[in-house]
């Protein structure tokens, strides 16, 4: 522009050649000039606009409303039913993939799996792109139905709880369901109200579109094994265990009679007959079995009849059989008669073989070791499943602290008080105002040990308590014949959460229990010998001793049968590494962590019912697998579908829509389109325009300054 104003004037003769050249170049000049004009104008405009910091509705950029789409996939056992030859679950995957394909590039997507508890397949929102969708589809195609329930409404709540993404205008939660009523929890009105409130109060309009599957699913009834119960999932070799299978007809029609086969591993244990059951009716069948070897054994009960839901036709339970469980007995050295020693009765009850070599053979699984109280500090307590304090005279405070650590980490402590006990010392060291190991405050002893005419009769306080269930059976045991001549008294008002195991006739507690973190403490107000009572002379004494030792040892024994969500724990050495295989074949690595003085592998996310296998990674040898069973929810077997009334209730919930069909991704509610700041784009465009202008101007300059030879006239 400037150079045009300062142009030179030249009187020119060869105008015809100039005109020819101009005519030839005019079109290119015009194009170049126009481009330069446009670029320079654009630079100016972009600069001005960037200074103004404009905001643009997100839809202007892409056309579609940017949504966050959350797919809720039902992974429950009921999805393993078939419609024709196709699994309901496969139908669901097909529809989910179709929904994924419909997403636009402005959407983001998350997938949550509805199991016993919600689990995010994609914890973070994934911006939609062809590659992301391909990857997601691969993930979705790899899913399988589980043995668990599907808590759909919990998934909706979890999805609604998510913080609204700033760049999205709406949230659409697409729930796939097989119409099973259980997963929707329609009777829990407070839960539904909470979900509705969350949807309404969401920062962006949120809606729930329910896609119902399974119309025409085969209804061939459902006879299921709800569970197999065993009183205690661990025992000694040759100890009889009683298994009870609970069978229920969950179908709408009466079930035909069938058989239930018992198995352990590949070995059949027998067959039981299941009679015809009316809809909703249940029955139980039992099996008594003892194991000849130590180890972990699976006992399974499987129905022979086939029905709509194959997953609940069997149930399993793991039992652990022990050969030896070490027990520590702490007692002062007895200088008198053996009959005055409490431990002698305990040892006798545990089956000491007097004739055996070195007196080490025990009939019982419990293998006792007797030490004096002074040796407590030097003894590794973690070796023992439980500890019996048989009326020790003096236990040092440091030893008491050590015992407390032992109990808190899952150990069992049984204190028997006798003539060596002193209520003042006891309350000071063991009770400690309710903070010590003792559950109740002790008061003075009553009764006369030498007067056998006056006594207290004793009984089990409850037949529901696992430690006294057997003792309360007077048909089998003779606890009612036991006499207590002297005993300490407990101040019943001095403690909370205390269980009474044994009591005298008028209700005063004799044996009390408290749970301290993972461990258990039993305190009995009489000694274990016969000095104050005739209990050791009863048959029930042996049973009581075993029952209570099992009861005390139980917290430290690995729990093989777990409920969903219960943690898997297995003792280990510090820094051991193990590999845990989940029921869906996924493998995760665990590292042993130390807590309360002992190291454990710990896995808390037992979301899926089924078998978990823990393999220790050892350098020396092949890893030894340890099995755990997470039991399935019996309610998932209830195939009752949503009634019309339930559907209306769901429809009536704000934000919910059922069977929207192709509009499953439609956004409902008033949408406030987010606005994007444009200055970044404008500055980028400015930079591009500047670069373009420079390139074009450079090209023009280069053309202008081309080194050309002048024309030679020749001769």
């Amino acid at each position, binding site marked *: 522009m400037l150079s045009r104003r300062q142009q*030179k004037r030249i009187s020119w003769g060869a105008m015809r050649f100039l005109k020819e050249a101009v005519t030839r170049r005019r079109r290119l000049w015009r194009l170049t000039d126009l481009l330069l004009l446009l670029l320079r104008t654009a630079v100016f405009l972009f600069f001005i606009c960037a200074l103004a910091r404009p905001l643009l509705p997100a839809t202007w950029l892409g056309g579609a409303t940017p949504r966050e789409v959350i797919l809720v996939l039902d992974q429950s056992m009921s999805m393993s039913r078939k419609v024709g030859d196709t699994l309901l679950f496969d139908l669901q995957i097909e529809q989910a993939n179709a929904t994924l394909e419909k997403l636009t590039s402005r959407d983001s997507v998350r997938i949550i799996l509805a199991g016993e508890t919600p689990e995010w397949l994609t914890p973070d929102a994934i911006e939609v792109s062809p590659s992301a969708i391909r990857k997601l589809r691969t993930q979705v195609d790899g899913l399988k139905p589980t043995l668990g329930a599907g808590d759909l409404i919990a998934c909706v709540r979890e999805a609604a709880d998510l913080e609204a993404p700033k760049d999205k205008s709406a949230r659409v939660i697409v729930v796939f369901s097989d119409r099973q009523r259980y997963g929707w929890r329609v009777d829990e009105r407070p839960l539904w109200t909470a979900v509705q409130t969350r949807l309404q109060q969401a920062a962006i309009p949120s809606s729930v579109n329910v896609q119902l599957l399974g119309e025409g699913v085969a209804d061939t009834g459902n006879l299921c094994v709800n569970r197999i119960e065993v009183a205690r999932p661990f025992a000694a070799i040759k100890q009889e265990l009683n298994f009870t299978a609970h069978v229920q007809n969950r179908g709408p029609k009466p079930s035909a009679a069938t058989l239930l086969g018992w198995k352990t591993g590949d070995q059949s244990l027998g067959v039981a007959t299941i009679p015809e059951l009316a809809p909703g009716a249940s029955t139980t069948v039992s099996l008594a079995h003892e194991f000849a070897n130590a180890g972990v054994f699976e006992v399974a009960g499987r129905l022979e009849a086939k029905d709509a839901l194959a997953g609940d036709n069997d149930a399993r339970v793991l039992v652990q059989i022990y050969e030896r469980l070490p027990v520590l007995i702490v007692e002062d050295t007895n200088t008198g008669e053996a009959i005055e020693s409490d431990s002698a009765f305990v040892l006798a009850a545990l089956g000491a073989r007097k004739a055996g070599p070195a007196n080490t053979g025990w009939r019982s699984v419990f293998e006792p070791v007797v030490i004096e109280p002074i040796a407590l500090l030097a003894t590794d307590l973690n070796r023992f499943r439980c500890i019996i304090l048989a009326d020790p005279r003096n236990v040092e405070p440091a030893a008491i602290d050590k015992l407390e650590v032992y109990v808190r980490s899952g150990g069992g402590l049984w204190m028997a008080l006798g003539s060596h006990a002193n209520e003042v010392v006891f309350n000071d060291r063991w009770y400690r105002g309710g903070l010590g190991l003792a559950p109740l405050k002790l008061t003075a002893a009553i009764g006369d040990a030498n007067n056998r005419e006056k006594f207290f009769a004793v009984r089990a306080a409850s037949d529901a308590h696992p430690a006294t269930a057997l003792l309360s059976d007077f048909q089998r045991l003779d606890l009612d014949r036991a006499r207590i001549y002297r005993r300490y008294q407990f101040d019943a008002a001095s403690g909370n959460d205390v269980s009474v195991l044994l009591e005298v006739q008028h209700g005063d507690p004799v044996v009390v229990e408290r749970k301290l973190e993972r461990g258990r403490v039993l305190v009995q107000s009489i000694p274990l010998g016969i000095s104050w009572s005739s209990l050791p002379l009863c048959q029930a004494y042996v049973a009581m001793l075993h029952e209570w030792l099992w009861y005390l040892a139980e917290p430290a024994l690995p729990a093989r049968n777990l409920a969903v969500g219960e943690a898997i724990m297995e003792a280990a050495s510090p820094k051991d590494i193990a590999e845990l295989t989940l029921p869906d074949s996924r493998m995760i690595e665990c590292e042993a962590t130390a807590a309360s003085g002992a190291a454990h592998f710990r896995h808390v996310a037992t979301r899926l019912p089924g078998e978990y296998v823990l393999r220790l990674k050892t350098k020396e040898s092949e890893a030894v697998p340890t099995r755990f069973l997470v039991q399935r929810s019996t309610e998932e077997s209830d195939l009752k579908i949503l009634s019309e009334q339930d559907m209306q209730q769901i429809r009536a919930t704000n934000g919910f829509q059922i069977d929207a069909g192709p509009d499953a991704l439609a956004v409902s509610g008033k949408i406030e389109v987010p606005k994007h700041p444009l200055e970044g784009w404008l500055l980028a465009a400015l930079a591009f325009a500047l670069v373009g202008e420079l390139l074009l101007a450079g090209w023009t300059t280069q053309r202008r300054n081309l080194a050309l030879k002048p024309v030679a006239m020749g001769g």
Partner: protein
Amino acid sequence: MTTLAGVSDVLNPKDLARLEGLELLASRVVDGLLSGKHRSQMKGGSAEFTEHRGYVPGDEIRLIDWKVFGKSDRYFIKQYIEQTCLQVIVVVDGSGSMAFGLDDMTKFHYARSLAACLTRLVLRQSDSAGLAVLGSTVRNYVPPRANPNHFQAIVRMLGDAQPSGETSLAQNLTELARRIKRRGLIVLLSDCFDDLDALRQALHFLRARGHEIILLHTMAREELTFDFGGWSRFDCLEVDGTFLSLDPGLVRKDYLESVQTFLNGLKRICGETGCDYHPLPTDQPMGEALAWYLQRRSARLKQT
């Protein structure tokens, strides 16, 4: 050398000195009334033998070649080319485009000086010299004379002539050809910025009338290099009010290509019509360039 008052602006003594001893010869036969150094189309008694022919009654006895008779016993007549004086007409293009010239003199001044030198050279070798200045028509015309005093008339006309306006070179040459009765040598001093097809026809026409044509093509250096910088306005020298405002660098390539095409076409036309083409860029010293051309021409004619 005769002093020529009032014509110092058209003649440079240095250029004249450079042309001392040179002569302008015709390469073809010409018509002339006087005996001179140029070959006439009239055959007859002269110094230069041409051919023999058989004797016929009525021929002069003195023209019989007795030597041939002695050898062949037959009568033959010797024939000679008659040499006559040359009629040279210098044609100066007076169109507006000839007024161009930035660093050097304008093309018209260059052509004017050339014309003066040539006419003086012709008159000094006792040939007839004439002058035509072409504008939109044959603007000025001085018929050829052999009289040395005729040079003043020519120089005066050259001094008075100014280039202007648009001209059709071809049309003017055709018109001029009709005015010239005798065949002779036509020296055209022009930039030839005209339609080449029309120019070809005009040159054909002149050649058909027996004229020999020398085209001394004058162009300015700037027209051959076009090395202007910065935005410029080019005012047309031939048509008032016509101009082009442009960046010369952007059209330089295309302009030079057009000029090259034009020059190639012009040379081709000269070749086709038998014209003697010689380029004379105005940045060459006029005397030297003309001397070099005349020397080369003389040498070429002597070879033939």
